């Protein structure tokens, strides 16, 4: 028998099935963890953000109308939790060099290869609104339209951020400061 759909698991959860939400967590934890890890760059922060994403979803599930896919909603919650975590981090950590503030601490990336570590460090220098689009589209393969729904932004904005994010990433890999693109209509994120 096919696995129950997300919507079916949500229906069961709301009907009191104790195991249904756990099945949703099992199914989507990998996607959420990778998204939050690429956004935050620290395994422990990503684990916390993953946990918080699912807890938030569980508490608000009754208000989930099902007009978009569960994963679209999950991405929205996860990205917002990452934004909150980054804001909190920027307040709590003394910043000596701005662009290094959100870099992973030494050893956090030990599980990844050296090149992946470099890429992750560069990714953390990409403005976070571009980073979210980069991770969702280029790492996780989420379509433009779904990202636009998750982020509440027009599809055109998603495409622009994606382009500018890719450019910023390449520049960060070359050791340049992220500065968006020369075509920018949006300002960089704060």
């Amino acid at each position: 028998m096919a696995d129950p759909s997300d919507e079916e698991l949500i229906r069961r959860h709301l009907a009191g099935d104790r195991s249904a939400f756990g099945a949703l967590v099992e199914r989507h934890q990998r996607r959420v963890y990778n998204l939050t890890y690429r956004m935050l760059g620290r395994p422990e922060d990503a684990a916390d953000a993953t946990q918080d994403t699912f807890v938030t979803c569980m508490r608000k599930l009754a208000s989930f109308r099902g007009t978009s896919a569960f994963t679209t909603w999950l991405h929205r919650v996860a990205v917002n939790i990452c934004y909150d975590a980054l804001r909190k981090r920027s307040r709590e950590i003394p910043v000596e060099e701005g662009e290094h503030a959100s870099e992973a601490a030494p050893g956090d990336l030990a599980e990844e290869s050296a090149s992946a570590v470099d890429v992750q460090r560069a990714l953390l220098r990409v403005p976070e609104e571009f980073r979210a689009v980069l991770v969702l589209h280029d790492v996780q393969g989420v379509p433009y339209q779904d990202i636009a729904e998750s982020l509440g932004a027009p599809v055109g904005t998603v495409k622009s951020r994606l382009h500018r994010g890719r450019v910023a990433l390449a520049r960060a890999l070359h050791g340049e400061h992220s500065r968006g693109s020369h075509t920018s209509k949006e300002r960089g994120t704060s």
Partner: protein
Amino acid sequence: MNDHPEELLAGYTEGSLGANERARVEAHLATCDACQEEVDLAAEGLTTLSSLPELDPPKGIPFRVRRKAGGTPSRAWRFAGAAAAAAVLIGGGVFVFTNLDPASLEGEGSAPQGAEPESAPLPRTGSSEGGGAGEQEAGVEATDAQLAAAPVLPIYVESRRNYDSEDLAPLARRLRDDANAAVRSGLAPTARSFFEDFDPSAYTPDVRRAVGCVLADVPPQQLIVPYRIEAASFEAAPAYVATFLQGPTPDEPYDRLVMWVAHRETCGLMSLASQVL
């Protein structure tokens, strides 16, 4: 500067544009070195990102979610449950709530979806003996003995009893009788007077944890008196059956007994019973 086809460049980089759009971008790139440079950089960025490995999430995320969701479930909701219990009790008798919050009910013992274990028939609390009820009976007897000598609350009982929702009402009625006897024997008759002569630091770790599970969801001004804590099971999950006494206000005599069933690991509320004293 608005003639740069920025919204098309992402699609161009990944090769997803239609022929017309692609031709438009190429015509622009032929005359715009800045955009050409960006497209080259964007291609590098895209290639780099697509090489990133997918990581395994750490073990224990589902448990952490259950623990956090069960440890601090939506308070408004749990208050609502308590308020509903109070409302029902105006009419007297016992009312039992179960399945108050599917989230808080996710114990470690949860079965896969669609495979909920059936509750085994259990001896009722009021019945004389059978299964794991022996410890329970002993606990209640100990209550009487302790209270007759000097009320020391809360009474703490460990048992192998596996309760289900139908067991709670009979247990609540039994404890009501015990509690009424305790008041007649000299137990401080109001929450205020009880706490005047009470040292919470004397709690054992188990009692502290069980009481903490319940108090996390009770407004601080609403004093409730811990009467009896039983570490047992509820529907096969480890649970505290925590019984409290409560008056309309802290300065009025107790008028009801409230029994909270909380998951021993997550603190999640599993059931609630209330009984008029």
